[in-house]
């Protein structure tokens, strides 16, 4: 395995697309349920929690970029190899691979659950799993360019559902936001922690960084992406808090989806069905990127053909959709993914950076001595 990734020129992408990559990874099924989670911790001061989370994520992004800039064109696995050596590096990379797998699985079963709750109570997990896995396999076979295309096109196409929120937005009660600044600092922190699952996804930067052509635009593109996702989550949360009474909101699992129910037109009465279907366009890019990250990482670390792992893992995920049919089981998976991701995404970059810098300094000293 090489530390730096040698990317063919026809596979390189513009940093512009990084915006869509990160937004499509961050915004998924999580945004539908996050208002309740944040609200139950920080109450009407949830917006402060989201802003705190955003600032923290931007700091993490800077640390990630600083780490990546120490190399010519490396990704997380190359860095692991360089810093921790062959065996320990492989171990850390495997943790990343496991994270991709568990994140993919949580997205998969959450979407299936939403479909079961809102549209088809009777549909079997297998059928829903099958179509989602089919979509994933077909997309991932196209390679990174196609996956980025999917995130871009779907990311633009799915935005029309935001207009459906205008109607509920006009009916909010501003009194729900008052009084301001009631939550304690600990509550705010807890609220920020509650949003961590939704905001996961920017770690894909560690993998796609070598593929980006104009590296100087990476930071602006990724920060804009994180800001946009935060704005969406902020808007969704504020809308939910303003629209629902506190007691109502705490009992709504997917509060944002319920908001869509209020909108109706002379030819379409219930938009939540259409929105749940449209959500497939929101979920698909996440699935594709996570599957790509999983198979690509295995290829990088263990030198297994990407196609082989794609088919095998897809089959395993399909079998996996049979289990965890109950709501609390799904929640357990999500919680596990959340805990896993919390350490790996929000804390680990701070651990990695000193090692990278130390290693670089050592290398430099070695180089100076040998010359």
């Amino acid at each position, binding site marked *: 395995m090489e530390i730096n990734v040698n990317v063919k020129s026809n596979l390189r992408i513009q940093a512009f697309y990084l915006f869509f990559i990160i937004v499509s990874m961050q915004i998924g099924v999580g945004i539908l349920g996050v208002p309740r989670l944040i609200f139950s911790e920080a109450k009407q001061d949830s917006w402060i929690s989201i802003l705190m989370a955003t600032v923290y994520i931007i700091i993490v992004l800077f640390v990630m970029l600083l780490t990546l800039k120490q190399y010519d064109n490396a990704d997380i696995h190359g860095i692991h190899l360089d810093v921790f050596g062959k065996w320990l590096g492989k171990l850390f990379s495997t943790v990343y691979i496991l994270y991709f797998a568990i994140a993919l699985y949580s997205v998969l079963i959450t979407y299936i659950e939403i479909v079961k709750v809102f549209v088809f109570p009777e549909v079997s997990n297998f059928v829903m799993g099958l*179509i989602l896995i089919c979509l994933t396999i077909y*997309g991932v076979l*196209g390679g990174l360019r196609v996956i980025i*295309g999917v995130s871009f096109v779907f990311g633009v196409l799915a935005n029309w559902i935001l207009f459906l929120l205008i109607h509920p937005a006009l009916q909010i009660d501003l009194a729900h936001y008052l009084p301001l600044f009631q939550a304690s600092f600990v509550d705010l922190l807890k609220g920020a922690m509650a949003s961590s699952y939704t905001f996961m996804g920017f770690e894909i930067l560690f993998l796609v960084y070598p593929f980006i052509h104009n590296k100087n635009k990476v930071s602006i593109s990724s920060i804009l992406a994180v800001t946009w996702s935060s704005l969406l989550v902020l808007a969704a949360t504020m809308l939910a808090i303003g629209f629902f009474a506190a007691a109502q909101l705490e009992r709504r699992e997917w509060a944002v989806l319920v908001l869509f129910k209020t909108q*109706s037109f002379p030819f*379409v009465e*219930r938009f939540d069905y259409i929105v749940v279907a449209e959500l497939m366009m929101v979920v*698909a890019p996440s699935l594709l990127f996570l599957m790509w990250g999983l198979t690509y990482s295995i290829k990088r670390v263990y030198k297994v053909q990407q196609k082989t792992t794609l088919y095998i893992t897809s089959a395993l995920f399909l079998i996996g959709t049979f289990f965890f049919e109950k709501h609390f089981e799904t929640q357990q998976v999500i919680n596990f993914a959340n805990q896993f991701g919390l350490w790996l995404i929000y804390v680990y970059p701070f651990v990695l950076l000193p090692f990278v810098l130390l290693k670089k300094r050592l290398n430099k000293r070695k180089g100076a001595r040998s010359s």
Partner: protein
Amino acid sequence: MRKRLKRSSKNIFPLKIDELEHLLMREFTNSPDLGFSKYEHQNKKIAVFFITYQVQPDKVENLLLTPLLESKKDWSNTSILNEIPLNSGKEYQLLEEILSGLIIGKVMIYLEDETAVVSYDFLNKEKRSLEGAETESVVIGPKVAFTESLVTNLNVMRWNIRTPDLAIEEITIGKRAPREVRLLYLKSLANETDVNTMRQRLEDLEVDQVEDINVLMQYIEDSSMSLFPQFHTTELPDRTSYAILKGKIAVLMENSPSALIAPSSFFSFFESTEDLYMRWNSGPPLRLIRFISMFISVVLTPMYVAAVTFHYEIIPTQLLISIGQSRAGVPFPPIFEALFLELMIELLREAGARLPTKVGQTIGIVGGVVVGTAAVQAGITSNILIIFITISALASFTAPSYQMGTTIRLLRFPMIVLAGILGLIGIMFGMCMLIIHLLKMTSLGRPYLSPIYPIHFEDFNKALFRLPQNFQHKRSVSLSLKDSIRFSKKKAQEKKDIDE
């Protein structure tokens, strides 16, 4: 085949006239088509031979035989070539060349004991005259269409693009029955990689024969499993010349009344030449209608099936009542009802396409009106579904490219089945697969969905809508042409103050 070719590619001359006749008669299996006449002139034996119906006989007599035989000269190959006042004279030494020359209508002269045959062109090709376009009819603008004759088509193209910059390359394809193919592009504009790729694909073709340019398209397209056409075939010369002037590549083929344009993006299939001829604010909205109608055509019937089968909560109560009333007597589930009606529309279209125009209209009335009404009255289908099906059928016919229209019509069937199985989720799954498929596709190695992905905002101006001419100062970026500027932006958009 290989063996015979080897033998015939040897130089067989000099030989006696009788030997030559014997040889040719064997090659042509004693066909009476081969006219082989022997003359004695100034004590020298001369043979003139040609295929009788491939040449113009009176011209051969007047222009060739008369000066040849009436002169008192002692002919040799060089003196024939010098003194007969025709410009197409050539010498051939190989039997293979002689045979292929005879087939396309060359007249050969052989003087006994010479080392070569002299040939003159008196090609007599039956062709029809130029006519108006049939499949791509236009309201305004040139209406002339290509014909089956390559020479006529090239003539039209040369008159359309009157510049020596227009490169016309000749490529012969087909091993057993070769056909002439021409590659047309602008030397100063077209992307060289694209031209090379196209030339390579044409030259690498190892097939017995290629029947038509639509078959050629299938041989050289990027992905043969896809439902979507990857190259545009058009029968309009002006459309072809616009494509060439935009920097694309066109391919013309002997005996095919259409041209192939490459690279083609998904959106170029919805362009009509009328978009250019109409003013910028009245033409392109029509293109928008075509995009919308494509979407309607794919989604409308599946939406109905999904809503009526699974999600009647979506339909507002008032509408639900009328749909319910019209569906009350229908004994089939919506999916079968929809598939049945879609099939019937396809049946009508197919019957209309095969029948003569006059009978076709009758079929339309009988099939559309009589059977449609009868089906509703008999309670087999609901009349609301008939409205939806008719709208989506109409919408699919708005695509200016017949190939794309067919693709859109075919796409409906899997969509209806998906909608019947999984409702809206099924439709969305179909749409996602469709978009991923389009993202994966390429045309001549260029992304099919450009300028949407990879995104080129500058090209939206051409692919999706069209701004006034003074904003068209740039050429298409996604084609990466040699010259990307059409005219100076500054001059075209100069602003004047009031009363200046």
